[in-house]
């Protein structure tokens, strides 16, 4: 059965079972390996993408649930060659270590900031439940506040 999927603005026709998790369709069928497999039970967040702009964990999400919706992966987050503000502060704050969990964290944070442009620490704690084994949390928090801070004229980045 063919399934139509819109990923990063492009439509794809996939011959996969409707219960295949979106993660594996993205990684194996479309070759978009920036979205990571971490646990397979939606516990760690490494597989987070946006579905119509909202973060979702794709390792347990059947592909059928994404039909008719816009899927945005880490590869599609930058626009016209310009990094998304979250990606940019991730570079500025040198957040990643091994980096494996960071696609998922960046997608989760981009989703959080779209809903809550200037989150408090409590809002960050409540929203961001991704696991990072390298322990980048302090930098993640700092970078979120940096991304959220209003860009004032002439301020150093």
């Amino acid at each position: 059965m063919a399934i139509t999927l819109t990923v990063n603005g492009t439509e794809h026709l996939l011959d996969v079972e409707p219960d295949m998790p979106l993660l594996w369709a993205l990684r194996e069928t479309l070759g978009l390996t920036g979205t990571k497999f971490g646990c397979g039970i939606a516990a760690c967040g490494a597989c987070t993408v946006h579905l119509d702009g909202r973060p979702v964990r794709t390792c347990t999400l059947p592909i059928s649930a994404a039909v008719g919706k816009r899927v945005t992966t880490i590869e599609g987050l930058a626009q016209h060659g310009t990094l998304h503000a979250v990606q940019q502060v991730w570079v500025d704050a040198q957040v990643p270590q091994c980096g494996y969990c960071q696609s998922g964290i960046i997608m989760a944070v981009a989703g959080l900031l779209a809903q809550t442009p200037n989150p408090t620490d409590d809002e960050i704690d409540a929203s961001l439940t991704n696991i990072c084994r390298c322990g980048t949390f302090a930098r993640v928090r700092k970078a979120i506040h940096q991304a959220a801070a209003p860009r004032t004229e002439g301020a150093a980045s």
Partner: protein
Amino acid sequence: MNKWTRRAFIGAGTITGGGFLLGVAGFTLAPGRHTLVSADAGEHGQLTTWITVTPDNLITILIPHCEMGQGTPTALAMMAAEEMNADWRLVRVQEAPALDEYANGYIIRTLSGDYVPAVMARGVDYGAFKIAQWFGFQVTGGSTAVRSTGEYGMRVAGAAAKEMLLTAAAQQFGVSMAECTAKSGRVLHAASGRSASFGELARAAAALPVPTSPALKNPDTFTLRRTAVPRLDIPSKVDGSAIYGIDVSVPGMLYAAVDFAPVQGGRVVHVDTKPAEAMRGVKKVLVLEEAVVVVADSFWRARKALAALTPEFHDGGNAGVSSETIFAAFDAALGAPPQMPATAATVVTADYKVPFLAHAGMEPISCTARVDGSHCDVWTGVQDPLNARSTAAKALGFENEQVTVHNQLLGGGFGRRLPFNFDYVDLGVRIAKAMSPTPVKMIWTRENDTQHDYYRPAGMSRHAGALDANGVPLAASSFYAGGGNGEAVFMPYAIPEKDADAKDAAHPIRLGQWRSVLNSQHGFFKESFIDEMAHAAGKDPFEFRRTMLNQQPRFKAALEKAAAMSGWGTPLPAGEGRGIAICESFGTIVAEVAHVSVSVAGRLKVLHMYAAVDCGDVVNLDTATAQVEGGIIFALSAALLGEITIKDGRVVERNFRDHQMIRIVDAPLVSVEFIRSNALLGGLGEPAVPPAAAALTNAIYAAAGVRVRELPVKKTPLVKQA
């Protein structure tokens, strides 16, 4: 400085594409080096040198270490570029191929013949000693990359390259070399105002002999080192383009899912493969001795088909093993506590326990392989590609030369991907052989990863300490089971009698190195116990330690700095407390203070961790800081929540729901400061781990009056018993 007893060699020639290669053979004592670094190396496309300069002014530095998140390639390249006075913007790095010529085990080994590097001579530095034993390994572990490859390899190679470029410029300008200086990738002759770029000089420089003992820069003149240089790998880690082992794509590859015999040492007895074989996408079901494997055209289909099988496994005779039986054996082996002097006014005793721990890197284990006739290609992420190569060769009955390992980025190592832990390479190539010549990517589920690790050893210790009537320590001794070594049990304190003896209590659980190796257990044991002695003496735990460190100025300075950073001694609200601990490992001394709160109901919150670090000097300030921040969080996650439990011979925990890790809500602030003692460089990947658990539990005691003697902390109710 190290001795160069043979002539260094140079490779120079035309690179494919018209470039020109200046090579400096940094490690010339490696067997086989002489034949490999020949004058026409470049023409054969064989890059066997460490530094190349091309006419476009780019400098490429080969790094014989993997990137698993520590920024090692960036730091090593900085060390070479610093010596060259290169323009950092023009420096690129490349991981060295998995060939014997790039074994970094040579570095320490060659230096330890008639000259023992001081990093090893310190005696307590077990990590470097271990790496030195791994002669011929291309290992990233033991926190050794910067202090061995960097200090004895990259600096020398960079200095030699600079000297050659200076010589070439002097000849071109018709002046003496002494009149020329190298700066930002150019050689300048100040008197005449002439200059030439490194790229312009590369061809002439490449024709020169390599200096055998180039002058290294005075550390006071460093301009690049100690700065916070952005890591070279980070851009690819924010846009999804970084390729880890699990991301590798080989044309035509299939996917394999694995179901292991759950009990340690178990094997497959019987399985009816038919239900899986009938399912979509399934190509083959392999019944191996230790596992059932489904190979399919997608990993998800392979997994789904595997789930349709009900294999019967033998328990390998270990079904009676459990965490309880293991700790009972430890307890029995430890016996009575160590004897204390009869003159003691007070004797303190305590037992401590730590569990098995899994590495749980975020990237599950994977191995992609293709066996085609007499050659095998392996794509994976390992901390030692050379040993991965020999593991694959052995599994296939090949010579090492018949295997090519394409090492990829590692989604976390922490010791899981070190040599002797390459079960996944062994299995991956056997699956590929069964499917030959089709390439197969084997992926482990998180459950496979959690239940088939090489675990951080569980351990138990039994301590006794003696104080005189004034609360001055007379003795502090311990027995321990579960592993230890001289570095791990080392206590820097001036106590007349100190001893730590191993007691044997064998068990069948598979063990391996876990970030900071045996220091993670013993840091908790020894720094908890000294804290208990301080309280028994009625003394402040910081002052108690400090008065015993007069013979150890580096320890004392680190302890004082951590205390000062944390505001030690200033009043805290009720329910809050500070704890301090200090350990040396891998040549680096780290003192940490934990600041915690414990609510009336026993709810713990780690508020802030402070670390004062003496690793001699830092190379990259930002990556050094990140390693300490990350090491502390890694250690806290283990101390608070980490535990692998054995029941009926198998691991109980399966995935991140029952094998918890801390998340951002639980992560404290972390403050890090470095002490520039100018001692020999110490490691940084691991040394922040050992003191963290004890700093935490010592803080809990200060906050709540509850002494935690068993990790993880979650097992102990933090409400003081009436």
